[in-house]
């Protein structure tokens, strides 16, 4: 449904996302794309019991006078992968950057409404963003490894927040790299510059760097758009492995990717949330015709 005006949207209740257990829908699926999604969901959905990680109520955001987001209302489930899709400029990144308050750095950015992560109000002026960002990690579109050694890249975050012994740090670096499925590739060159890695490895390193802090939420803004298909595949596999431990919110322009990796998909259009539902539903039987047009590629 399209929120035609602000008044209407304020009354709008969040779409309850009810995650079904991985029953076999394949018989009902005519769309090959949906088949892909189905396989993804079958493979990855664990037990259906979910809790809400992120609660968004009546959330609007502005850049100066320009309103980038209009009265968002949604819940993002814990330990699931939520994909944000929508045409360029519809405000996906803006939303993501408000969740860990990276938009504080933009002078003209401001917002209103409620944004709660794990029970804490993210938008609280008094909130320590340093602590928030440890709990809500972010991976950027373009891999941005630090010009340091691979080891120092992963150790950078922990060193900011904790005083660790060398041994503890070594173990943490190894575990993070293993979790990011990068350990085997880099274990012999930990002291080499991270800039020598390939693009895909760099992006996985950035993920390793982020999960080294054991965040609760992992924000990914088009993490694969700068990568080749093979590297993309590996990052997607990694996301699939991480979803049990982290709440992942991923922005993507790639429908297949959204279908492959996510449990829940939210469709944004012109700063409004059009529809949020189980990924399978969005790709097979969206309630909103606009969503259908978008996911089938007839639009945008």
């Amino acid at each position, binding site marked *: 449904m399209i929120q035609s005006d602000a008044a209407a949207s304020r009354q709008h209740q969040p779409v309850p996302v009810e995650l079904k257990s991985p029953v076999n829908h394949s018989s009902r699926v005519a769309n090959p794309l949906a088949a892909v999604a189905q396989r993804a969901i079958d493979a990855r959905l664990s037990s259906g019991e979910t809790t809400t990680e992120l609660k968004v109520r009546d959330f609007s955001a502005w850049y100066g006078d320009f309103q980038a987001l209009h009265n968002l209302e949604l819940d993002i489930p814990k330990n699931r992968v939520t994909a944000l899709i929508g045409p360029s400029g519809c405000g996906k990144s803006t939303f993501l950057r408000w969740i*860990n308050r*990276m938009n504080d*750095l*933009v*002078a003209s950015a401001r917002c209103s409404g409620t944004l709660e992560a794990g029970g804490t109000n993210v938008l609280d002026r008094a909130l320590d963003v*340093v*602590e*928030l*960002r*440890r709990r809500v*990690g*972010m991976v*950027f579109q*373009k891999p*941005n*490894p*630090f*010009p340091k050694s691979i080891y120092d890249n992963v150790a*950078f*975050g922990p*060193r*900011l*927040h904790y005083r660790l012994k060398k041994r503890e740090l070594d173990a943490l670096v190894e575990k993070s790299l293993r979790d990011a499925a990068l350990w085997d590739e880099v274990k012999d060159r930990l002291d080499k*510059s991270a*800039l020598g890695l390939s693009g895909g490895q760099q992006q996985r390193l*950035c993920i390793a*760097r*982020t999960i080294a*802090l054991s965040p609760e939420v992992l924000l990914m803004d088009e993490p694969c758009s700068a990568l080749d298909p093979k590297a993309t595949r590996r990052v997607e596999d990694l996301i699939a492995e991480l979803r049990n431990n982290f709440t992942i919110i991923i922005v993507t322009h790639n429908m297949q990717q959204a279908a492959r990796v996510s449990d829940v998909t939210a469709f944004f259009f012109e700063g409004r949330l059009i529809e949020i539902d189980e990924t399978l539903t969005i790709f097979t039987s969206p309630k909103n015709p606009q969503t259908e047009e978008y996911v089938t590629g007839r639009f945008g």
Partner: protein
Amino acid sequence: MTSLLEGRQAIPASRRNRTNRRFLWVALCVTSLSVLALSVLLVTVLFQGAKHLFGAEVAVVPDTTHLVSAELDERGQSVQLVTREPRTQHLELLERAPEGATVRVDGADVLVVAPDGAELRAGTRTDVTSAALTPNRHAVRIEYSELVTHEVGLPSERSLDGASIETDAQTGRVAVRYTNGSTQIVGQRGGTLARTHVVGSPNLKAAKDFLTTPPSMTPTNAGFNAPLLGSIWILVVCALSALPLGIGAAIMLEEFRPRRRGPTHWVHRIVQTNVRNLAGVPSIVYGLIGLTVFCRMFGLFGSALQYAPYQRFELTDGRTILGQLVATEEEVYHLDSELLGHVKLERSSLGEVTQWPIKDEPIECHGTVELNDEYLFVVRAPELGEITIDSWAIEHAELADGGPFSPREVDLTFSMGGQGRYVIETPDAGRMYVARDLVRDTVRDIDTVPIREHIYRMGDGRVLRGELMKLNDGELSIRRAIGEDVTTFNIKDVALRPDGKPDYRNRTMLMLGDEDSSFHVHFPMGASVLAGGLTLMLVILPIIIIATQEALRAVPDSLRSGALALGATPWQMVWGMTLPNAVPGIMTGAILAMSRAIGEAAPILVVGGTIFITFLPDNLMSGFAAMPLQIYMWTNQPDPEFKKVAASGILVLLTVLLLFNASAVFIRQKLQRPLT
């Protein structure tokens, strides 16, 4: 669709190419011209400087005005110069010669011939050129010549095989030309102080001497140690203050810029704009700022010693004392007197105090000025005694006739100039400024009887120079320098009784640390190393800030976001990410700024860098010399020999500069790495 350009004539490609080529030609011409000029300059400096730096051997060479012959001796260790020196002699006659008598020289005999033909032998002498009776006819005055042999030693390590002797008729210069083309001067007309250049083989000892001896008024003795070390001191102070301050300012401006509009935003913009403008401000302006802020400190702490005026204190009993007021207590004034050292003065005894104008109360006297065998200027006058001045102590000398200094008898005035100098003026020999400290020491503790020469101004107006012998029960014995006579005075006859060590407790100046300790600091700073270094800091601060800002800006924002997204505080981001990656750029900028600082003369001059200083700085409050100042002074000296000394100085300065730049390049190469 028809083209809009149809039917249009294109500009011929040849024409456009011609313009292109013309520009390249002009660029080529300009470039080659500047390269040419630069190489000529460099070669000149190198050639001149290397001569002084590496080739100079100082020696006294004989006068060749009456040269007869010059040859190498058989052993090849020396050159024998034979001169025929004119001499005069009076042969006393036993009795007065009769009227009309003449003189005749017969072989070796000098005969007086009476009008009646009688001959009387006055004496014997060979090589007589003229002989005549003196007007009173009591003696015969003969002029004759005498052969004198001078032996000039040659460096033994040199091969004399094939060496030849060259004589220049015009200058009277006699030189040995070695087979390798180098020459050594062994004789010169006038003879006094010639330098012997041994070009061709570097003489490292000469270079070492140049770097380890103080500047001097005689080019042969001129060294560079005080300016070199002075420059190093102020550069260290400058670097230690400018780097943290500049980098910190740049971080503040660049990484902590206010995001939202408001007063801080405006302050940021004003500061940012002004930092850029300040980089273009002439350095002399910084000199003036440094003078006000550091040397004088707005007069907040009273005047620094250097700036306390010399004053004439007229006492109620009619006596006069000259000096600086250094401290005041309730009823007592402390003066640093020129003549008496530190004196305490009862306020009630103080009459009128007037400014001591430069060169007031000169002591006029008649005496001699000469350059003795040890190259010391000796000024002798009854009123002054004998003042021996190391030639390197002379700050400035204008000699009326230039040329080698010959002893002369002169009328001279001896007075006290400002800025710690004596001025000795002689009408025909010119004017000399002498650093006061080098002529005598301040009386530090008169009761311990320093064995040094001082000038004592007596109550009756006489001025005596001599050595203080003893002081007991009001009796003061001064041994006069000339004639060794000991004069004893009653202490009351001396203008005022010197009284112990200076008491600094009540100085208006703020003193930290003992005056002799290396931690000694006083405010205001006066013309000190600290003030000089801080002034240079002002000069290069904008450059460092701008360079650091550029370097910080070159660090991609993605790294900042990466660090912030991991929960870094802005400071952690700067310290752990931005700054390390900006270090190569910062270092390059900083080192280039330092090379600017090393060449600055104007601000140093303004804050009181000294010229012809002969002591090395030993703490932050020491006075200092600096390389560019010294070079400038040398180039202004009338003696052409100083041009070479200046060139040597330039070589040293250039070397230091190149070292700085080389390290900048090295650091850039070593540390710079890709950031993404």
